[in-house]
């Protein structure tokens, strides 16, 4: 997804065509690369619809299951439109340091001629759109069971434009962090640091659920959560593997290390639970899987098998204790642990990539003349600047929206459940 990665993994046939017919080269899409990114686009959308939606929906109470599904569905729709109209342009048009320009409004420049590397620009824009959907959708986990639907929509649209699109531009759109040489293959900073930080801020601004922490109900459906987790795992192949923007060695290795980190993250969590409680749970294993995946994401295109193993281990352990800390000790109601799992995992991976990309760990190596410590400082700066901007902007957006509409539903509605009150539906009927 970065320009770097494209160079590293540029595939042969395009080169071949260029050598044979220089005049045609500019127009050549590679059908194999295109096939894979079309597929990856489907896979990443699948992560949100219904993957993440089910993962989260299973964790809440049954009186809020429809509202969680609706949040995901409505966000997928409204963020797609936002992306088409404005977001894509802010992220990928022009070469400002801090934000793109308005040259790509309404995706007006995309035709059946324009390319991105070896794939049609339409495919690139659609693939990126699926990232612009899932990032704000991740934040849903922080505000389930209490946030007002109108505020959910307004917040997500504003956040996409003020946080996600600029940060994407910084890192992947040729902006400031790209010039620093920040390495973020598939979104440790762009996706997970932003979503995690925003989750923490929104949890603090909204406040706790009425029954938190005394009598939080356990997940109403581990079945739904497990189905969703499985889809996230599958979809993540498209997320990380697709970020190579081609179907070659880069995508293959990214998929392999992604899979390993997921498996190990899940096992770590499972064994900790087994050790502590004597009973490993499926929700725990699924959570560990997500932790492993979030952690490997920024590094997935730069590392080898050992890197995948280490990130799975690190992500599993550290996110487990982060959940304990944030929800257990600090009693912050980031309800489905978005910061502790995605934020912490994404940040961890974004920092460790500086070392794990080294050839000593079978990685692809750093850019010339860059040391691991040097790269680490660059990564750290990237994470910090992103977290600060995200926290500030999230806070301000919420305050502004709070002037126009209630951020939370009333206590009565919260007690009765959001499903009937906000959506006129119940998740499960008797008839």
């Amino acid at each position, binding site marked *: 997804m970065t320009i770097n990665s494209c160079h590293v993994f540029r595939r042969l046939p395009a080169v071949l065509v260029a050598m044979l017919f220089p005049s045609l080269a500019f127009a050549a899409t590679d059908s194999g690369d295109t096939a894979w990114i079309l597929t990856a686009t489907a896979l990443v959308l699948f992560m949100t619809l219904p993957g993440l939606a089910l993962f989260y929906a299973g964790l809440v109470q049954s009186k809020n299951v429809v509202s969680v599904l609706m949040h995901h569905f409505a966000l997928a729709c409204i963020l797609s439109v936002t992306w088409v109209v404005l977001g894509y342009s802010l992220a990928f048009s022009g070469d400002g340091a801090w934000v793109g320009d308005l040259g790509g409004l309404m995706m007006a420049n995309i035709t059946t001629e324009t390319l991105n590397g070896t794939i049609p620009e339409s495919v690139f824009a659609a693939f990126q759109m699926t990232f612009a959907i899932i990032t704000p959708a991740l934040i849903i986990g922080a505000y389930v069971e209490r946030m007002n639907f109108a505020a959910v929509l307004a917040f997500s649209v504003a956040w996409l434009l003020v946080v996600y699109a600029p940060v994407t531009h910084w890192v992947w759109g040729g902006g400031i962090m790209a010039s620093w040489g920040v390495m973020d293959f598939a979104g440790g900073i762009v996706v997970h640091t932003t979503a995690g930080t925003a989750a923490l801020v929104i949890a603090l601004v909204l406040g706790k659920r009425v029954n938190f922490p005394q009598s*939080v109900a*356990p997940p109403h459906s581990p079945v739904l959560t497990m189905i969703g987790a499985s889809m996230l795992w599958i979809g993540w192949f498209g997320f990380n593997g697709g970020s190579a923007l081609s179907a070659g060695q880069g995508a293959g290795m990214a998929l392999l290390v992604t899979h390993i980190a997921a498996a190990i993250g899940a096992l770590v969590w499972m064994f900790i*639970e087994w050790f502590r*409680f004597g009973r490993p749970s499926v*929700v*725990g294993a699924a959570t560990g899987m997500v932790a492993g995946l979030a952690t490997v994401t920024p590094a997935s295109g730069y590392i080898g098998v050992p890197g995948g193993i280490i990130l799975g281990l690190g992500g599993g352990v550290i996110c*487990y204790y982060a959940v304990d800390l944030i*929800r*257990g000790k600090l009693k912050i109601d980031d309800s489905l642990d978005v910061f502790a799992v995605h934020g912490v995992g994404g940040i961890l991976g974004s920092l460790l990539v500086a070392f794990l990309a080294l050839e000593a760990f079978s990685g692809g190596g750093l850019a010339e003349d860059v040391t691991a410590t040097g790269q680490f400082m660059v990564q750290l700066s990237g994470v910090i600047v992103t977290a600060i901007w995200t926290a500030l902007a999230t806070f301000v957006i919420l305050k502004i929206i709070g002037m126009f509409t209630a951020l939370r539903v009333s206590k009565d509605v919260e007690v009765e459940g959001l499903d009937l009150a906000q959506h006129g539906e119940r998740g499960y009927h008797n008839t």
Partner: protein
Amino acid sequence: MKYIIAIIKPSRLDDTHAALTEIGISGLTVTEVRGYGRQRGQTEIYRGAEYSIAFVPKVKLEIAVDDKIADDVVDTIRKAAHTDKIGDGKIFILDLKDALRIRTNEMGVDALN
């Protein structure tokens, strides 16, 4: 007539039902319920924490019977539902004023079997 309400363990339903059929009980009604008593609910795990569940799944039987066989029915349930572990449940006996079979309009004991 008596209206017998028995709260038993779900795993004893099949045997209890079979035992009742054997002594000639040809009708009863079953409800899934949750019980609270000396038997404590199990704990569930959720992301690094254990939650204790106040209620345990139970099954409620309701059987309307002629006074003459009430004791027999109570006894049969008791034996069949017995596992000698906490949580085996209770049997409650209420007076039943009248009964009616909707299909035939029969009343009283005739409505029961």
